[in-house]
């Protein structure tokens, strides 16, 4: 497990990151292009005393993941589009009952079966809104193999810290490519554990949060007998229809994520200081965007890049500021318009927002983004 410099595949990096983060349970169902995560963990988990199970479907996998997490074990599942759709109901359950876990979606072309072996970025809105009912959401979008590894660890840390599922979204190219990576020694990586109650069982309220809106969590079987339900519930975890209790719970769930926005928010800027036009791009597309910005600069166009690493909650503030600075923002995505809606909203008409979209199953080439930049210059 001692990591250093080497060639590593994106999906492998995800599996290894999970092990470093303390993940000791994986339940999944195979699907291209995410299967290597499962395959790697089927091998690695028992080596560290953890467990891997291939369930009968993605719904069961999500359920088993939540069950294991309630058993006190850091848990993960991974899938791609069709499987991500199937997980939505239980994902909502985990959000509502505040059970930490990490859900990886390696995006492929869609909708439906689509292009199983081609990349896309067309599940980013689904990641935010896929399950029914009101819910907050945290999603990270790494752009390199190294970042897959680190974001997986961050996803676990955030999940445990905030008692909520965290979604890791990256596309087939990132999942399948091998890249030179330099990894920190696992012993140097900061690992977060779920907040534990300090009170005795008799007074423990599983859904009573303190200051930070995160209720302390104790695994099943430790004497803190409590109830977990996907029905609207009170601080004791018992079903309630009391409108005030229901509303308060709903609002706390949102606030929990909202108030930790700064802890969650992550992005990279590239040559943005003096930029007059900017690209907004994430994941694989951001790599092309970086290349395009380099070329644009060499051609005298003051371009820059805002690359969100955390997609949800959305970087409203950062995009708002960007819109004040630049003339135009090119939103480049491998879909027919998803994050651009958020950029438009945050820009509030202060900068022109232009789209570069592609849904052919191929990654966007730097030259395509360069052309888009030149058009809005």
């Amino acid at each position, binding site marked *: 497990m001692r990591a250093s410099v080497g060639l590593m595949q994106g999906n492998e990096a995800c599996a290894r990151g999970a092990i470093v983060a303390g993940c000791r*349970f994986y*339940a999944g169902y195979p699907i291209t292009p995410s299967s290597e995560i499962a395959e790697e963990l089927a*091998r690695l988990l*028992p*080596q560290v*005393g953890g*467990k891997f*199970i291939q*369930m*009968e*479907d993605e*719904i*069961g*996998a*999500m*359920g*088993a*993941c*939540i*069950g*294991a*997490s*309630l*058993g*006190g*074990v850091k*848990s993960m599942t991974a899938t791609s589009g069709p499987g991500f759709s199937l997980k939505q*109901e*239980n994902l909502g*359950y985990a959000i509502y009952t505040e059970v930490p876990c990490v859900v990886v979606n390696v995006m492929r072309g869609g909708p439906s079966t689509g292009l199983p072996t081609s990349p896309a970025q067309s599940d980013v809105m689904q990641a935010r809104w896929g399950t029914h009912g009101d819910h907050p959401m945290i999603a990270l979008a790494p752009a390199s193999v190294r970042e897959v590894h680190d974001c997986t660890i961050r996803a676990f840390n955030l999940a445990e810290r905030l008692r909520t599922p965290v979604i890791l979204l990256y596309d087939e190219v990132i999942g399948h490519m091998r890249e030179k990576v330099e990894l920190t020694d696992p012993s140097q990586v900061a690992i977060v554990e779920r907040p534990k109650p300090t009170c005795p069982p008799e007074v423990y309220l599983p859904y009573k949060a303190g200051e930070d809106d995160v209720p302390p969590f104790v*695994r*099943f*079987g*430790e*004497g803190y*007998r*409590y*109830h*977990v*339900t*996907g*029905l609207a519930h009170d601080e*004791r975890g*018992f*079903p309630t229809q009391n409108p005030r209790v229901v509303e308060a719970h709903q609002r706390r769930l949102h606030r929990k994520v909202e108030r930790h926005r700064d802890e969650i928010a992550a992005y990279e800027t590239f040559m943005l200081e003096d930029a007059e036009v900017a690209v907004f791009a994430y994941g694989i597309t951001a790599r092309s965007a970086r290349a395009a910005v380099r070329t644009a600069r060499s051609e005298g166009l003051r371009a820059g890049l805002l690359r969100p690493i955390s997609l949800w909650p959305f970087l409203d503030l950062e995009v708002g500021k960007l819109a004040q600075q630049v003339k135009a923002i090119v939103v480049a995505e491998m879909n027919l318009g998803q994050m651009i809606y958020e950029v438009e909203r945050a820009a509030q008409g202060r900068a022109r927002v232009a789209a570069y979209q592609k849904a052919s199953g191929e990654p966007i080439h730097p030259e395509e983004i360069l052309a888009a930049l030149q058009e809005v210059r």
Partner: protein
Amino acid sequence: MFDYHEYFRSEMMPHMWCKGCGNGIVLKALLRAIHRLGLSKDRIAMVSGIGCSSRLTGYVDCNTLHTTHGRPLAFATGLKLARPELTVIVITGDGDGLAIGGNHLIHTARRNIDLTCLLFNNQIYGMTGGQLAPTTPEALFSTTTPYGNIEPNFDACRLVQAAGGTFVARGTVYRAIPLEKLIAEGIQHKGFSFIEVLTTCPEIHGRRNKLGTPAEMLQALAKTTLPTGVIHQASGPEYTEAYDGIIAKAQGRT
């Protein structure tokens, strides 16, 4: 004498089940079985789906998990793998466990993981107001079979046995003491135990089909033509134990 109240969450009682509903009788048998086995409440986890029967988990003062419709066995599988030392009891209905959750049922049976599953078969979807279940007898009425049911129904025990279950039993709420024994045996069995409980829904199913008073419905169960008692028992490697073997292998210990 044994006092059920020791096992209750007093805040949640009395329960929400209708007048004369058989679910309370099953709950009693379950609590007696737990008591008989001397299991500690801290060491029991109960996992249920969605339905009237699945509300049971809210009432019992142990580690309880009321999951999504049809999925309790999947949640329980994860929980059991994470904490093999817990006694995990799954509560499900005929809709929850045989309709939407049928696949998890057969796969959990196949894996032979050490869970005890109680399926409350009241022949109907009680919670949602009386729609067809895969156990509703032919020709009976439900809100979604206003002209009488034309679907054959499942023999849950046969299905679970065919899927590989190693302990398969059927009891009824009319024979509550044998039921208690079956539950206790199921919990003690190493591997997947399945106990179908024939129970009654007098409020919704009974009323619509004029099946009589709650007591009459109970008594009718005495005359079921389905076999009761332990129907099948076999031994085979239990899943979490088998997985320990994998860990030993992976760590080079075998």
